[in-house]
Structure formats: structure tokens, C-alpha cells
């Protein structure tokens, strides 16, 4: 059989109807497409942030403690939650519904820990005087450039918008997983797997938010502490 004829047979078999061409159900494919569209939302926000950062005098205010320590522990929480989620999906695939529920509840625990730590971190910054369109006065003094250019007040807007939208996704994921944990005995394995896809996506987004927002804004010289 020629290559063309083989390709034709393959295409007809896959796309001729009666089979799932991607070998995944329509709900799982739908979640993948949602993840792609949500990736573009976060990409647009992070590129917008980078655009502003490249064209402004950007403050770098995060001290080792509390900001970087909190953000690192939060990263640990999200990565661990992904591990427990994958264990949950694995248990579900073996038909071990009780095990799946246990691991999904662990995932929710890590997700809630992430949100609590993040809110404490937000509270530190808000107490210091950071607002969406204003910087604390002492930040303005410390981060004004040698040519007199003040730091941009948009720091707060980008920080709260990006981390806030991510936190909203984590909170939504925690609610979603609670429903899955409660109904796990009635749900099919694919439904558990789909909830896992969403959760891993939330983790994946943080892998870009953490270095771009936190690591690149570390107050290396401890200027604010002086």
C-alpha cells in the first residue's frame, strides 16, 4: 500500500465518524480547549505586565521575608497539590474511589493553604500602603531613579490583577474539587481526570507568575529595609 493510500485509510478511520479521533471524550477535549483559552488570558496579562515593566521605572520591593519566603512556600503548596491530584487521578483509574477522595481532599487542603498564605502576603503589602494605583510613599523615595524618574504606580495594578485572577482560579478549583470529592463515587474516571487537568493548569500558571512577579522584583540590596 502506498504512503498516500495508508494516510487515506488512517484519516478515514479516525475522522470518518463512529470513533473518537483524539481518543479522549468530548468533555476532556472541552477542558483542553478551555485551558488553551485561559492560557491566552494569562499570557495576555503577563505580556501586558512585561510591556509596562519594560517601558517604566519599575520598583523592586519584595524582601526575602515575608514576600519571597511566602511565595516559595506557596509554590511548594501548589506543586504538592499537583502531586496529590495526580495520585487521586491514579487511584480513580484503578477504581479506588475512597483513595481518590482522600487524595483530592489533600489537594484541596494545599489549595486552601495557598490562598491563606497569599492573602496574608497581600495583607502585608496593603498594610505597607500598596494600592492598585498608588505606591507607599517610602517606596517612591527609595525607587526614584537617579535621573529623577519616579517608580510607576502601576506596580500595584499589575500585581493585584495577575495574582488576584490566579487566586480566583485556585479558589474556583478548590470548589470544583470539593464537588468532585463529594460525588466521586457517582462520577466516571474521566470526570476526575478532567478536574485534575484544571488543577494542574492552575499550578502551571503559577510557574510563570512566581518568577515574573516575585523573583524579578526582589529587593536584592535591601533598599527598603535601610
Amino acid at each position: 500500500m502506498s504512503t498516500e493510500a495508508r494516510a487515506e485509510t488512517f484519516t478515514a478511520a479516525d475522522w470518518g465518524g463512529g470513533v473518537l479521533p483524539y481518543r479522549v471524550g468530548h468533555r476532556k477535549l472541552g477542558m483542553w480547549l478551555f485551558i488553551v483559552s485561559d492560557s491566552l488570558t494569562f499570557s495576555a496579562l503577563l505580556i501586558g505586565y512585561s510591556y509596562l515593566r519594560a517601558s517604566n521605572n519599575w520598583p523592586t520591593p519584595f524582601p526575602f521575608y515575608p514576600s519571597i519566603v511566602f511565595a516559595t512556600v506557596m509554590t511548594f503548596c501548589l506543586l504538592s497539590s499537583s502531586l496529590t491530584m495526580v495520585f487521586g487521578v491514579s487511584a480513580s483509574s484503578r477504581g479506588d474511589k475512597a483513595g481518590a477522595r482522600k487524595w483530592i481532599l489533600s489537594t484541596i487542603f494545599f489549595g486552601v493553604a495557598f490562598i491563606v498564605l497569599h492573602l496574608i502576603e497581600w495583607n502585608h503589602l496593603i498594610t505597607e500602603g500598596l494600592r492598585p494605583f498608588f505606591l507607599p510613599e517610602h517606596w517612591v523615595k527609595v525607587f526614584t531613579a537617579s535621573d529623577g524618574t519616579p517608580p510607576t504606580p502601576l506596580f500595584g495594578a499589575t500585581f493585584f490583577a495577575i495574582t488576584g485572577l490566579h487566586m480566583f482560579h485556585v479558589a474556583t478549583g478548590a470548589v470544583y474539587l470539593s464537588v468532585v470529592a463529594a460525588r466521586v463515587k457517582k462520577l466516571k474516571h474521566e470526570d476526575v481526570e478532567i478536574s485534575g487537568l484544571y488543577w494542574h493548569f492552575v499550578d502551571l500558571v503559577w510557574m510563570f507568575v512566581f518568577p515574573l512577579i516575585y523573583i524579578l522584583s526582589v529587593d536584592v540590596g535591601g533598599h527598603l529595609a535601610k
Partner: protein
Amino acid sequence: MSAHAEEHFAGSNKLFISIWIWLLVLTGIEVFLAYKPMPIHYMLTILMGLSIIKAALIVAYFMHLKFERLSLVLTVVPMLVTCICLFFVFFPDSFRSSGLRYKFKEQPPVPAESPENP
């Protein structure tokens, strides 16, 4: 074929734990780099490289894409990467607008009211 006929979930717990450890190590390297003095563009390149590796590990193993059909990978990944790359078209404008910014020390302060713009 039923949508859930195949419920085999590839990958062992040992594999997933090793991926988790790798992700933690890469995060540790990122935090370590934060305190290494280096030009911002080097730092950005290294951090984004590490983040892409971390994202690839999550997508391939935790999200299981490595074990899915190639047709699904080719449907999802290339168009996402292309769209994200297209966002970069804005950056020349960002660098240009940085140069247009008001120079505080080189230019006199703007008067509150001028005859041309009352």
C-alpha cells in the same frame, strides 16, 4: 468505542514523585538566582527557560499529555505557542515608549499654565 473504555492511567507514583522533586529543585534554583547579581535580560532568559521546563514537565506528566495521542498534542500546543509568540509584537513599542518618557532632570518642569494651553 466508549469515551471511557480505556481507563488505564500511565505513569507510576515513583515517576510522579521524581517529577515533583525536579519541580521543587528548579523552584529552588529560581529563588537562588534571584539573589545573584546579573543583568536583568540574562536573569529573565534563565528564569523563563526554567519556567518553560517546569511547565513542560507539568503538561507532559501531571496533565498526561505525553501519554495522549499525537493528534491531540498537535491540536493543542502549536497554536497556543504561535499565539503567545504573536504577543511579542508589542515589545518594540514598549522599548520605544520608554525612550519617549519625560526626562525629569534634562527638561525644565512643565508650567502649570502656558499661554498656548490655557
